[in-house]
Structure formats: C-alpha cells, structure tokens
C-alpha cells in the first residue's frame, strides 16, 4: 500500500515519459489483480462447457474438448429448472415492486415532511439495521404457519410491501433530501397534492436511486437462500437459488450441469449490472455515505 501512495502523482505535475513510467507499477498491480479476479469467472464458463470426463482430469485442462454445451440441456433434465426460474421471477417481480414503491414513499416522508414523532420513527428505522433477521425469523415462522403460509410464496414477498427495509428507506431519504425543494413547491402552489407531487415530480427525478435500489433488491431476491430454505418444502415451489443447490448430491455431484446452472444464475445479474451501471455509479456517488 505504501508503494501505491508514494506513486500518487501531484496534481499539477507536468505530463511526460517520467509520469507514465512512475505509473507502471500501478498498472502491473492492477493487471495482476484483474487476472486473479477474472480467472474464477473464466473457469466457471469454461467448466460449464466441458464434458464431465474432461472436468475430472489432472492437471486441470482449460479448453473444453469436446465442446460440450449439453450441460445446459442436462440441468433442465435433472431438475425442474424452468419451474424454479418461474417461481423466482414471480417472487422477484412482486417483492421488488413492493420494496421500491414503499421504500420510496417512506423515504420521501422522512426526507421532506415534518410531523411530531417522525424523527423518532426514523431513528427506530435506522436502528433496525442492527437487528439480525434471525431475531424475528422464528416468531415470523410461527405467525406464518398459523395463517397457513408455510410452503407458499407469500412469506417471501408480502413483507416487502411494508417499507422495503431500513437500508432502502435510508438510500431514498438521502437522495430525496438532495433534490431542490423549489421543484415541488412550484407544483404544490399549482394545487397538486402531496402524493401527486411525489409521483409526478419527485420520482421522475430520482431515476438513479430507483435504479440503485431496484438492482440491489433484485440481486437480494435472486440470490436469497435463507428464506426459501425456511419456508419452502415442496420441490415444485423452490426458487432457482435453492434448485441449484439440489444438483449438489450427497454422494455424487453433477459438476457439469452444476456449473451450467451457476452460469445461468449469474448471466442475468451481469446483464442487469451493465444495463444500469451508469445509474449505479451515479447513485453511489449521490447517496454517498457521508
């Protein structure tokens, strides 16, 4: 770390060969780290295209030979992957919508409105960040079992419609606080209601934070395994994340289809990242943790 800081260029230093030479160590370290970060991902993709006999070779071989995309077909034959995918998409759509709408509403209330006790409520909201979900998990399980929600998808998405979590509320509040008040005041003088102002003025100006919360929430729902493990018993109700683990056998693990399933799980998240990358950068900067 010392080496990197000593290499820090002074802002107004004249550019020239000495400067690029001074930066050479930085590029070497960056390249080394990039290789280390990329190798596992490349290995995942290559492994998913290998026949299992080639996977179990020593020393490990890089290039798939023969090229074996059948793993991608086989995972659908081994487990009801389509069903898992549909279940996940359903829970995700319902849950993410709930999180984004309600956390934006609550965040707006905390950012812009004043009422007796509201600051205390916000304090409580932030305090729940410290509360591990394990404390409420067991009572919630009992509550949901009393109303017959065990082995249904309801426990996975219904709670998302109640504020969407302290972290998302906080992100929205930070972002809304930075929007100039004049924007809504003009609309309200024209007679627009609070909700209308929120819906028509505030939200359209908050694409960055909406993208940020949406993406983080999609990632959370897509990868969650804790709640599905607790609430879903029958296989046909499982989610993708849970279904992928079922390819890991107690005795025999089908590594080929397992790698293919992992790729299948990863690709949508990568695509999503690239689609909203601009907003994520912007959102991280604007809501910047200060």
């Amino acid at each position, binding site marked *: 770390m010392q080496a990197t800081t000593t290499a820090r260029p002074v802002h107004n230093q004249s550019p020239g060969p000495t400067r690029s030479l001074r930066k050479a160590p930085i590029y070497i370290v960056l390249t080394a780290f990039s290789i280390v970060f990329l190798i596992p991902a490349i290995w995942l993709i290559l492994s998913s295209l290998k026949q299992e006999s080639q996977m179990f070779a020593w020393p490990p071989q890089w290039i798939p030979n023969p090229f074996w995309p059948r793993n991608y077909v086989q995972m659908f034959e081994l487990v009801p992957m389509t069903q898992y995918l549909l279940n996940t998409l359903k829970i995700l759509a319902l849950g993410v919508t709930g999180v984004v709408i309600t956390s934006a509403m609550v965040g707006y209330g905390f950012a812009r409105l004043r009422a007796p006790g509201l600051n205390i409520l916000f304090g409580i909201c932030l305090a729940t960040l410290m509360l591990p979900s394990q404390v409420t998990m067991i009572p919630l399980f009992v509550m949901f079992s009393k109303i017959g929600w065990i082995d249904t998808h309801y426990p996975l998405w219904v709670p998302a419609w109640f504020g969407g979590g302290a972290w998302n509320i906080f992100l929205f509040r930070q972002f809304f606080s930075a929007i100039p008040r004049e924007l809504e005041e003009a609309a309200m003088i024209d007679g627009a209601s609070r909700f209308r102002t929120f819906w028509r003025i505030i939200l359209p100006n908050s694409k960055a934070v909406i993208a940020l919360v949406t993406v983080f929430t999609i990632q959370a729902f897509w*990868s969650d395994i*804790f709640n599905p493990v607790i609430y879903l018993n029958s296989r046909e109700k499982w989610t993708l*994340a849970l279904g992928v683990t079922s390819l890991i056998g107690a005795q025999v693990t089908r590594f080929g289809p397992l790698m293919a399933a992992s790729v299948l799980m990863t690709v949508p998240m*990568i695509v999503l990242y690239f689609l909203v990358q601009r907003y994520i950068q912007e959102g991280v900067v604007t809501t910047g943790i200060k």
Partner: protein
Amino acid sequence: MAITKDRDAATRRPQPALRHWRSSVAGREALAAYLFTAPFSIGFLIFTAFPMVFSIYMSFHEWDIANPPVWVGLGNYSTLIGDELFRIAVFNTVYYVLLSVPLGLAVSFGLALLLNQRVRGEGIWRTIFYLPSVVPLVATTVLWMWILNKDFGLLNGMLSWFGIAKISWLGDPRYTKISLVLMSLWGAGGGTVILLAALKNVPTELYEAATIDGAGSWARFRHITIPIISPALFFQLIIAVIGTLQIFTQAYVLAGRNQSSFGGVRNSLLFFVPYLYLNAFRFFKLGYASAMAWVLFIVIVIITLIQFKTLGSRVYYEVDTRR
C-alpha cells in the same frame, strides 16, 4: 371524518382546535407524513416489534410448536454456555470475521486507492473488480467448491506448478475456513466502488496546499485522505462485521444441506446462524434458537457500540454548510 359527527368525541376534544390543526398547513403536512411512512410503521409493528417481543418470550421457554411452551427462565441461555457445538460455532464465526473483514477491507481499499491514481481505463478496471460481487452467492460458492476441489481443482492445479502438494481445501479442518475467506475476498471489489466514490470526493486543493507546505505523499495520505474518507471506511467496516457475523449461504451450500454433514468436516464449517437454523428448523427447539438469536443481537449491538466508541470519535465528519 366520522369522528367529528360523534357526539362523545366532539365533547371530549377541543373541536375548533382539532379542526384548526387538521386544516392548518402543519397539520396537513403531518397527516401526509404519517401516511407516507405508514408502510414502515405498520410493517415495523407486524414484522419487527411484535416478533421481537414474541422472541424474548420464546427464549424463556422450551417450545417445539406441537406442544405448549414450558417456562424455563434463563435455562436456554445457561444451556448455551455448556453447549459444545455452540462454542464451536462461536469460535468459527469469530475466526472467520477476524480474518475475512480486515483482509476484505484492505483489498477493497487498496484497489480503490490504485484506481484513484488517474489511471487510464478506470471504468474497465472498476468493472472487472466489481463483477465478482454481482455473482450470486450460491453460484460463487458452487464455483469455488469446484476450484477448491482437492483432486481436480484449479487452485491445486496452479499450486502444483510450484511443487506444492494437493491441499484438501474443503476436507481438512485447518483449511475450510481459509477457503471461505478466499471466497469472500473474490467479492471484495464491491466495497471498492463505494470507497472510490469517497476518495473522489476529497478536494484536490487540500493535496495541493499540503504539497506546497512540503508534505510528503505518506503525510498527505495519512493526514488528508484517511481523515476525509474515514466515514466511508468506518461505515464499510460496520456493515462488513454485521454481515459477516451472519454468514449462512456459503456454509449451507458447502455443508448444511444434509443433517448428517451439517457443520462440515469435524464441525469446522459450523457457524452461528447455520447452527441457529439447525436448532430452530431441524430440531424444532424454538426457544433455544430464540435465545441464540438474542445473543447474536446483543453481540451485534455491543460490537457496533464499541466500534462507535473507539473508532467513531476519530471519524472526521465534514460539516455540511449547504443547509
């Protein structure tokens, strides 16, 4: 609105004041505030406050859902102290947190510092470092399970170039937690983005002024960079500690799916939350598991408070003059 027509309510409440309050700007704003925050307030009561109270009650009882709860006082808590598996789970969790959090923070901060050196193609580097943290944890674990495979894994294959004998990463209790740390470091680039944003917020004038005053690069780093981004670093630290304490997915995928192999080789992968899950949903010791959950909560609160006390006072907060 129906209330005002109610004769009783009308006599009990100072009606003109109420009407005044309701029609006043402040009153209407307050009403809007409560409506906007209602999803949280209602959700907090149903999904947090009530379950918390219920959970305390349960932690003082022995309960398996099927039979009525039996009061045991602090019995569950005292059983925890003598529980050998609980002690192993605590040890493993602490071990993992102490290794994974500092190393992860060092890697993500180191990368952020490098990317802040006005390098070419910053966006590409940033994307490369960030991408592994986008990979779903289940997929990450499955992938590393394969990379760390003793007989056919890539890591042992690469180590063999240096003449290092095959290591049983996931089968030898000495290496299982190290394996999880390696896995977590692969995702360390997630923090890089946030720290890099913080580094970019450091005003360059400060560096220029310090340079003119003769400050070396280490002095600039130590007395300008660190203080100004300390809130971001501090925040990352707290979030990482809380999150890492609750490790579940990796342990579940590697060892937790079968009750027979739960906890991995010689329980070297038995962590706090998976053990809690085992007690609650496999053994149906709901009271005992609730007691564990409260221990975890109290530990998290204490750790957070200690971090605020010891580090928080050194964190530099810029006074926002815009308001």
